[in-house]
């Protein structure tokens, strides 16, 4: 007997939640308990009173599962609103990455040149290394990291994305 696989879609969800203890565990746990995927998750409180947080989750799965994820999230008491940006679109998604590269001579010059092309900022430097800060779509970060692999990539830290609907109104 073989386990069957279904076609997958990538979706970006934003979730507004009461900023109460355990809410993150509840949401992350919902994904594990029901076998859903989390590709990235970001969270930070966004109100003056620190009582509401905005979570952005990137997930993938068959369309019916994406719909279930949406419904299951909305069922949680502290969840105010769930927006499937991929569904509602068009939307912007941005991620921040810190990328450490070490090298001397040609490689160092080339790394700096490419950083300029990608509009990455240098946030730390020694005579043999840089830390670049790069913001952009996950694709853009992927390709920058790919190029740095040839030039002395040491480590990468990524935040996971935050997303927002384009245009004047809120999601």
């Amino acid at each position: 007997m073989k386990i069957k696989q279904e076609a997958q879609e990538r979706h970006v969800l934003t979730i507004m939640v009461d900023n109460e203890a355990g809410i993150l565990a509840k949401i992350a746990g919902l994904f594990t308990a029901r076998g859903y995927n989390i590709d990235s998750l970001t969270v930070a409180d966004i109100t003056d009173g620190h009582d509401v947080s905005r979570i952005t989750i990137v997930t993938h799965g068959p369309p019916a599962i994406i719909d279930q994820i949406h419904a299951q999230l909305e069922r949680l008491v502290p969840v105010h609103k769930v927006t499937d940006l991929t569904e509602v679109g068009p939307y912007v998604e941005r991620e921040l990455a810190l990328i450490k590269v070490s090298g001397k001579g040609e490689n160092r010059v080339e790394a700096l040149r490419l950083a300029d092309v990608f509009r990455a900022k240098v946030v730390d430097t020694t005579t043999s290394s840089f830390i670049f800060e790069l913001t952009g779509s996950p694709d853009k970060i992927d390709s920058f990291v790919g190029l740095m692999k040839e030039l002395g990539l040491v480590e990468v830290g990524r935040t996971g994305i935050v997303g927002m609907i384009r245009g004047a109104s809120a999601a």
Partner: protein
Amino acid sequence: MKTERSGAEILVESLVAKGVEFVFGYPGGAVLPIYDALFGDDRIRHILVRHEAGAAHAAEGYARATGKPGVVLVTSGPGATNAVTGIADAFMDSIPMVVITGQVPTALIGSDAFQEADTIGITRHCTKHNYLVKDPSQLAGIIDEAFRIATEGRPGPVVIDIPKDVQIAQAAWSQVAPQQRNRYNPQVEAPADDIAQAVEMIAAAKAPILYTGGGVINSGPEATRLLRELQKLTGAPVTSTLMGLGAFPADDPAWLGMLGMHGTYESNMAMNRSDLIVCVGARFDDRVTGRLDAFAPNSKKIHIDIDRASINKTVPVDLPLIGDCAKVLAQIIEGWLETGRTKADLTEWNARVDGWKARQSLAYPRRKAGEIMPQFAIERLYALTKDKDPVISTEVGQHQMWAAQYFHFMKPNKWLTSGGLGTMGYGLPAAIGAQLGNPDSLVIDIAGDASIQMNIQELGTATQYRLPVKVFILNNEWMGMVRQWQQLTYESRYSNSYSDSLPDFVKLAEAYGWKGIRIEDESQLDAGIQAMIDHDGPVIVDCLVAKEANCFPMIPSGAAHTDMILYGDEVAGTMDDEAKALV
């Protein structure tokens, strides 16, 4: 009037304010302040169980039989973990329940303190919501919200974990109800356009069926009434899940019996061949659908459910109506009447249904003289008790299915069973809770020889509170349901399913101060049942039944509704891995 009260006192006052009559509980170190606050307070009756699982199931039974939320009180650590099965059970079956758990003092949380368990973490995914209370001034508001969450929308269990210091610390308390947070507002009515479309679909159907579930019971007596009305207006036949039995009267000609794995042939065939399924408060559970790709292939589907997450979860539907069953049924009926609809001509459909009924799928073979067929025992139990309008609870196994098939229910809240989780040991404590809520009713736990041992200690609870609960054991000396599956799918290799070393249930009854009756032969059956009914106190009936009887009809796992096994009784065999892998 504002005064200072301890957290424990605020808890008790809040429970009283919520109209709580009974608390099912068990004391321990981390709830001593609450037990002290309860001491001598006669506004709430504390029912001392013998195991915390018993407390949770008793609260479930009380809730299911009365429509009111059940309340549980247990200590930290093992008290809370013992209650988890009952909490998970209530979550699966949408039973309103509020569980108060003690916790180690705030300062010790996370230090692996004595009897510390991460109750919030453990119950996170088997509760509708849970709270760790860190400040007694928040208690009243939390309890208020907890009862709303437990009872509104799709009901379910809510856990409130209260550290011991929070029970002792003082906070301002006022008689005025706390301000509602108002963040939980489930949708209860469906949009008018969708209702109009539903009416249109029902009126156009040539082969409609009403597929009803526990949601109708949860919604309350009005939903039951409206279901009957909608059936009268449309003429559609009615089937129900295990959880929904009693919502529609079993003596109505439109009643097809239960559907699903052990449902009747007519209900499963009618589902499969229908052109419209109106699902009312049911959730297309795998025990109901059988093989998904063969489930009701030619029907349109309307799904009424208060839980949006139940829609399209396993079966895609054409028209979801999110809302409370009673409200949405009322909307549909109103739409039907306003647009002057009349019953469609269902003569042909009814004739087909009658054809399936004629197969008599609940017929069972007679065995050797004197031997009691378990189905027959249930039929006699029904015949001799039906005038008393009894409340029936069950354990889990063949006896549960036989009870669902051969005991017939005319009203809601009379049938208490663990459907979603299938928890052996549910029936006895549930019967105790139901009896407390209905002191004058005849309450019977239809049990199996194996299941009854899972919470047998609760016999003592019934004795203590003078509850005349009856336990009717269909004793086949096997974990019959397991044995049946092994017979059908594992070539009768009966691995660990024999009920060895059974106690003498009659003596056990007597040891607990109950009456014990043994029925060994068909000739003793009626007299034994009558003696049970007539005894003004708790009774165990040990009814020795045919040991290897099987529960049919049955849709084997991995099969479609149309592939039922009917009175197959002697089937043995094996299955391929795909079928075995299905639960």
